[in-house]
């Protein structure tokens, strides 16, 4: 049985900024979360909200320049990855923490056989010779459901279909028994029927191998079926964090509410107009220190335009960053408070 309270990764106030000609883009601006053993953690948000950059930062994969991790800690078993030397990190990447990327067409090298690419990872990280590694690679391909793995292992990536290539990526990512698997939009490039296969596979394998999974996606349907905990991101910050069932049954942040309402659903009666959040996601260059969602929000108050909202924590793991929920517990869900009162509370913080 997996001990669910065993925190293996703790991210504290992570900030990754990019320098551009127009100004500094705070792609990730103070993100904190922790990941427990065997847990599946989801990141949702729209393009450009910083979900991928957050997870690339965990493994120090941010191209620098222009990117730079300016602040924060990434504690993996109580050791800060951000302070490690390059060769130490190399022992973790692909070994203890591995990644699956969105596009299975471009994340495999088209010039190398599948066998070369799989065996390389295993030899690099595990004390195995070539023959043993090849055996392990074939085992992994079988595990992810590639038919006739002993024969197919010597194929080139172009001989596989999109879904099969994503299976190969999963085999590669899991070949060293990692503790954490980061899946960055693993099924976005795939068709629904193939998506169902791949999600099922990731779920089965992470349960079987006890791997903790971080799943990044923009598809609320995917996270609903896969994750235990969810982080909703907007403009570089986590704006709501909750376990999955509460997030969908009782969303708090106006952005989360809007996001859930604006997805057309198969299981609900339609006929009425689809809800839509007005406006566009913000331009991230030189953003002022205020709630980034206020131009699109239905409940905007004066304070929202002036200060970033505090983190409200309800004590059982749910957090919301919104001025509707001032930092002190007790005022929870008092949505009809007048704007003035909120202003006062905000002023006092």
């Amino acid at each position, binding site marked *: 049985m997996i001990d669910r309270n065993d925190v293996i990764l703790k991210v504290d106030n992570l900030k990754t900024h990019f320098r551009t000609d127009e100004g500094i883009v705070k792609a990730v601006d103070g993100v904190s979360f922790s990941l427990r053993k065997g847990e599946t953690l989801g990141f949702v948000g729209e393009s450009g909200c910083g979900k991928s950059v957050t997870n690339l930062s965990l493994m120090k994969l941010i191209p620098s320049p222009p990117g730079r991790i300016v602040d924060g800690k990434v504690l993996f078993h109580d050791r800060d990855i951000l302070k490690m030397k390059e060769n130490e990190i190399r022992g973790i990447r692909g070994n203890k923490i591995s990644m699956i990327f969105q596009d299975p067409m471009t994340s495999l090298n088209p010039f190398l056989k599948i066998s070369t690419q799989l065996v390389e990872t295993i030899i690099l990280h595990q004390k195995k010779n070539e023959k043993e590694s090849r055996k392990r690679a074939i085992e992994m391909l079988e595990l992810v459901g590639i038919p006739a793995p002993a024969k197919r292992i010597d194929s080139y990536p172009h001989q596989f279909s999109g879904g099969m290539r994503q299976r190969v990526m999963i085999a590669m990512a899991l070949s060293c028994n990692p503790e954490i698997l980061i899946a960055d939009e693993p099924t976005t490039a795939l068709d*629904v029927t193939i998506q*169902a296969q791949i999600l099922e596979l990731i779920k089965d394998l992470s349960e079987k191998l006890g791997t903790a999974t971080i799943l990044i996606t923009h598809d609320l349907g995917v996270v609903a079926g896969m994750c235990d905990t969810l982080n909703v991101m907007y403009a570089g910050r986590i704006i709501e964090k909750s376990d999955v069932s509460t997030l969908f049954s009782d969303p708090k942040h106006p952005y989360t509410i809007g996001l859930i309402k604006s997805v057309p659903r198969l299981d609900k009666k339609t006929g009425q107009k689809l809800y839509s959040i007005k406006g566009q996601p913000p331009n991230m260059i030189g953003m002022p220190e205020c709630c980034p969602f206020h131009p699109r929000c239905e409940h905007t108050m004066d304070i929202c335009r002036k200060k970033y909202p505090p983190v409200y924590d309800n004590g059982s793991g749910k957090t919301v960053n919104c001025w509707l929920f001032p930092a002190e517990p007790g005022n929870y869900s008092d949505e009809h408070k007048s704007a003035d009162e909120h202003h006062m509370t905000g002023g006092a913080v």
Partner: protein
Amino acid sequence: MSTALLEVKNLKMHFPIEEGLLFKKQVGAIRAIDGISFEIKAGETLGLVGESGCGKSTTARTIAQLYKATEGEIIFNGRDLASLDSRELLSERKNIQMVFQDPYASLNPRMTVTEIIAEPLIIFKNRGLMTISKKEITERAEFLMEKVGLSSFFRNRYPHEFSGGQRQRIGIARALALNPKLILADEPVSALDVSIQAQILNLLADLQSEYNLTYLFIAHDLAVIEYISTRVAVMYLGKIVEVSSSKVIYKKPLHPYTEALLSAAPIPDPEIEKKRKRIVLSGDVPSPDRARTGCYFYDRCPKKMEICKNNIPELTETGEGHHVACFLYFSP
């Protein structure tokens, strides 16, 4: 009941596979569309859904006469488009416009918004098919910008200055410029974020009721199709396997492929997701490069029978307006 605006009869579109450097000879064909028939009534939305490579986009492009169909008829407004000469086709094409998937690739980066929206009008003016003054053209472009929710203040900006959702609005305005009857929308929302997707879907629905437009709406997202469509056609490997009203098909899918497709689509509700039983199809979509003698879905079908191997099921009406191509519901 209104009559059919567009009628497609036994349409086939085969792309030749050629071999040889100098003397090319055809060695096979990709059967992108392999005999489909359907009709779209004026004012309705037909949703076309299916996995990548099943021929959805080819269908739209063949209807717009961007490809010359291998076989079959495309009857628009009572005239077969394939038999028209180029001038007649151009004037008929005024009524058929497209909205494309990628709002970044479908707008010329060197043209301003006004130029993009006005381009169809200018083409028709230059060919003498329309009398419209320069001033009217600019006015029309600005009117259309406002109509799709863009301030005409931005008329002289270039596409790169707009976000994905705004660009898609420009693409829609361009499609509306000539007052078309039929709009072929090829995955118009799949490149957009959820919150923007909802805005564009609502815009398309509003425009439809205001201008009495008819849509052929292509998407791979089943929920989007359900939201916007009056009727839904499901495609697989160049064939239509099921057609019905969107109310019926989502409640009572008949074809095993439709069932699998619906069960594979994730629903954003953890309680439902936990209880659901998925039909996970094995394998991938086969390549459409050979002629088939049996059911096109035979290789992946969980309910296949002996009869399916050597007989092709034709689209057959099994209930009111509900057509399905599967031997579970009739014998050959």
